[in-house]
C-alpha cells in the first residue's frame, strides 16, 4: 500500500530527439488566465459611473446654494440689507428682520465657547500628556460616545434636569453675585440664553477636545524632551513645548466647535425660550437662527414669510461654510507634515 501511494506519476518518457516535432509556435493563448472580458469599454463605463458619484457631491453643494438663493429672493427684494439690521419679526404684518436671531446665534455660540474651550483643551492636554495609559482608551471611547448622542436627547435632558437646576440654584446665585454687571439681571425663567450656552458647551466639548487631542499628538516628541532638558517643569513643558507648537491646530479645533454650535438646532430650541428679542441679560430668553427655522418653517403661511425664513437659512449656511473652511485650513496647516494617511 505504502509503496503504491508513493508511486511516481506517469511522466513523459525521454524521447529521441529526432522524433520531436518542432511546431512553428505553441498555440497562442487567446483567453487570459482570468476572465477579463470587455476590459477597456467597461473601464470607461466604470470611470464614468464613479465620476458621476463624485460630481454628485459637488452637485449637492451647488443645489443647496441654488435652492437657498432662488427661494430667498422674494424676501431679499422686499427687505434688502435691512433684513439683517432690523429688529422687527412680525409675521402677521409680513414685516421681517433677522437681527434678534443673528444676535441669539452669536451670543449663545460665544457663550458656549467661553465655557467649553478651557475645559476641552484641559481634557485634551490631560489625555495626551498626563493620562495613565490604561485610562486613555476608555476615556476616548466615552468622548466618542458622547459625540454620538443625538441633540434631541441633550435637549430632553436639558429640559428636565438642567433647567430646573438653573432656576433653583444657579440663576439666583448668579443674579445675586453678578447682577450688577447687567449680564445676569432680571427674573429667572430657566429657559434662557444662559441655558442654551451651557447645553451647547456640553455638546461641543467632545468635538473640540478630540480634534485638539489629534493636534497635540502630532507635536514632535523631541519638542517635549528639549523643553524638559532645559529644566522646564512638566507644566512649563506643556505650555512651551506642546501648546505653543499646536496653537494653530487648537484654534482650528475651536473654530470647528464654533461651526457646530452655530448650526446646532434641537437642543437649543428646546431650552432657549424662543422669544425674538434682544436682551442684555443672559438669563432672559432669546432665539437663534436655527431655532426659528425649526419652530416656524412648517407653519409659515405666505410666500414672504417662507422666503424670509429661507433667507435666514442662507445666512446660516454662508456663515458655517466660512467658519468651517477656516477651521479646516488651520487644522491642515498643523497636521500636514504628518503622514496621517498613507498615500497609496
Amino acid at each position, binding site marked *: 500500500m505504502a509503496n503504491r501511494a508513493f508511486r511516481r506519476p506517469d511522466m513523459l518518457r525521454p524521447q529521441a530527439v529526432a522524433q520531436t516535432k518542432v511546431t512553428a509556435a505553441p498555440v497562442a493563448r487567446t483567453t487570459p488566465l482570468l476572465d477579463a472580458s470587455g476590459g477597456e469599454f467597461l473601464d470607461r463605463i466604470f470611470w464614468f459611473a464613479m465620476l458621476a458619484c463624485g460630481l454628485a457631491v459637488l452637485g449637492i453643494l451647488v443645489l443647496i446654494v441654488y435652492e437657498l438663493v432662488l427661494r430667498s429672493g422674494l424676501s431679499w427684494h422686499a427687505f434688502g440689507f435691512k433684513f439683517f439690521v432690523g429688529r422687527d419679526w412680525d409675521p402677521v404684518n409680513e414685516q421681517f428682520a433677522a437681527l434678534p436671531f443673528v444676535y441669539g446665534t452669536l451670543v449663545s455660540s460665544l457663550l458656549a465657547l467661553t465655557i467649553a474651550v478651557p475645559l476641552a483643551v484641559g481634557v485634551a492636554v490631560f489625555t495626551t500628556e498626563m493620562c495613565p495609559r490604561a485610562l486613555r482608551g476608555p476615556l476616548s471611547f466615552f468622548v466618542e460616545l458622547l459625540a454620538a448622542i443625538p441633540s434631541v436627547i441633550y435637549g430632553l435632558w436639558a429640559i428636565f434636569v438642567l433647567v430646573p437646576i438653573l432656576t433653583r440654584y444657579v440663576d439666583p446665585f448668579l443674579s445675586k453675585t453678578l447682577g450688577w454687571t447687567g449680564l445676569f439681571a432680571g427674573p429667572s425663567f430657566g429657559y434662557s440664553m444662559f441655558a442654551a450656552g451651557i447645553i451647547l458647551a456640553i455638546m461641543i466639548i467632545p468635538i473640540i477636545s478630540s480634534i485638539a487631542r489629534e493636534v497635540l499628538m502630532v507635536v514632535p516628541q523631541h519638542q517635549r524632551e528639549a523643553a524638559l532638558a532645559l529644566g522646564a517643569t512638566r507644566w512649563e513643558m506643556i505650555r512651551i513645548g506642546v501648546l505653543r507648537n499646536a496653537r494653530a491646530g487648537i484654534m482650528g479645533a475651536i473654530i470647528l466647535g464654533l461651526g457646530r454650535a452655530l448650526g446646532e438646532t434641537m437642543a437649543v430650541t428646546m431650552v432657549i425660550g424662543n422669544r425674538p428679542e434682544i436682551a442684555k441679560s443672559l438669563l432672559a430668553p432669546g432665539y437663534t437662527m436655527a431655532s426659528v427655522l425649526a419652530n416656524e418653517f412648517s407653519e409659515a403661511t405666505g410666500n414672504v414669510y417662507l422666503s424670509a425664513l429661507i433667507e435666514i437659512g442662507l445666512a446660516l449656511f454662508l456663515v458655517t*461654510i466660512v467658519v468651517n473652511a477656516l477651521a479646516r485650513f488651520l487644522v491642515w496647516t498643523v497636521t500636514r507634515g504628518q503622514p496621517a494617511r498613507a498615500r497609496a
Partner: protein
Amino acid sequence: MMTGVAVFTVLLVLLPLVAIFGYLVYRGVGSINWAFLTQTPKPVGEPGGGMANAIVGSAFILGIASILGVPIGVGAGIYLAEFGRHRFGDAIRFTADVLNGVPSIVIGIVAYSIVVLYQRHFSALAGGVALAIMMIPTITRTTEEMLLLVPQALREASYGLGIPRWRTTLSITLRTATSGVITGIMLAFARVAGETAPLLFTAFGNQYWNLHAEQPTAALPLQIYVYANSPYDDWHRQAWAGSFVLIILIVSAVSAVRFAVRRGTFGAA
C-alpha cells in the same frame, strides 16, 4: 498643582456627561414597556400607547436614506481614491468636508424645496433625501481613506494578471477594504439616525402607521421632540423611553464598529 487643575477639568467635563448618560438610562429603563414598543400613539393627553410606528418609520426613512446615499457615497469615495489624484479630486474632497459642516436644518430646507414643494405634501421620501445628503460626505471621505490603505502592490498584481481596472477596483481593492468601508457607512448611519432638525419639515411625523414613501411618516427623534415639549407626564415618560431605544440603537452600532475594527478585521490596514 497644574496636574490637579487638569484632573479637575476632566472631572468637571465628565460630570455632566455621566449625568446625561446615567439619567437617560435611569429614566429610560423605568419608562419602557411592552405597549411602548408595540402600540401607536394614543390621542392627545390620553395616557398609554407607544411609539411602534415611529420606530418602524425611523427604520423606513433610514432605509430610504441608505439606498440613496450609500451607493453615491461609496462611488464618490472610489473615484477619489482610484482616479482623483488631481486638482479636481481635491475640489471634491474639499466640498465633502464643507458639506459635513452644513447645519442639518439647512439641509432640511433644501430637501423641502426639492421634494416637498414638488410633491405638494410632506413625505418619508423627503426625509430620506435629507438624511441621504447628510450621509454622503461622511461615507465618501471614509471610503476614500479605507481604499487608500489597500497596498498598491495588490492592484498591480491584479493588473499583471490582465484583470481590467473596474474589476480590480470592485473585486480586489473594495473587497480588501470592505470592513473599513462598512465601518464608515455605519458611522454615517449612526450620525443621521438621531437627526431631528432635517425631518421637521420633510418627514413631518404621523400618528399612524405609514409605509408609503410619498406620505408623511413618524420618526423616533421627531416623536421625542414633540413629546418632550408637551405638557403631559405620560408623554414625557415616553420621550425618555424613546430616547433610550434610540441611544441603544446608536451605541450598539458604534460599539459594534469599534469592536470589529479593534479585532483587526480591518482589511488591509
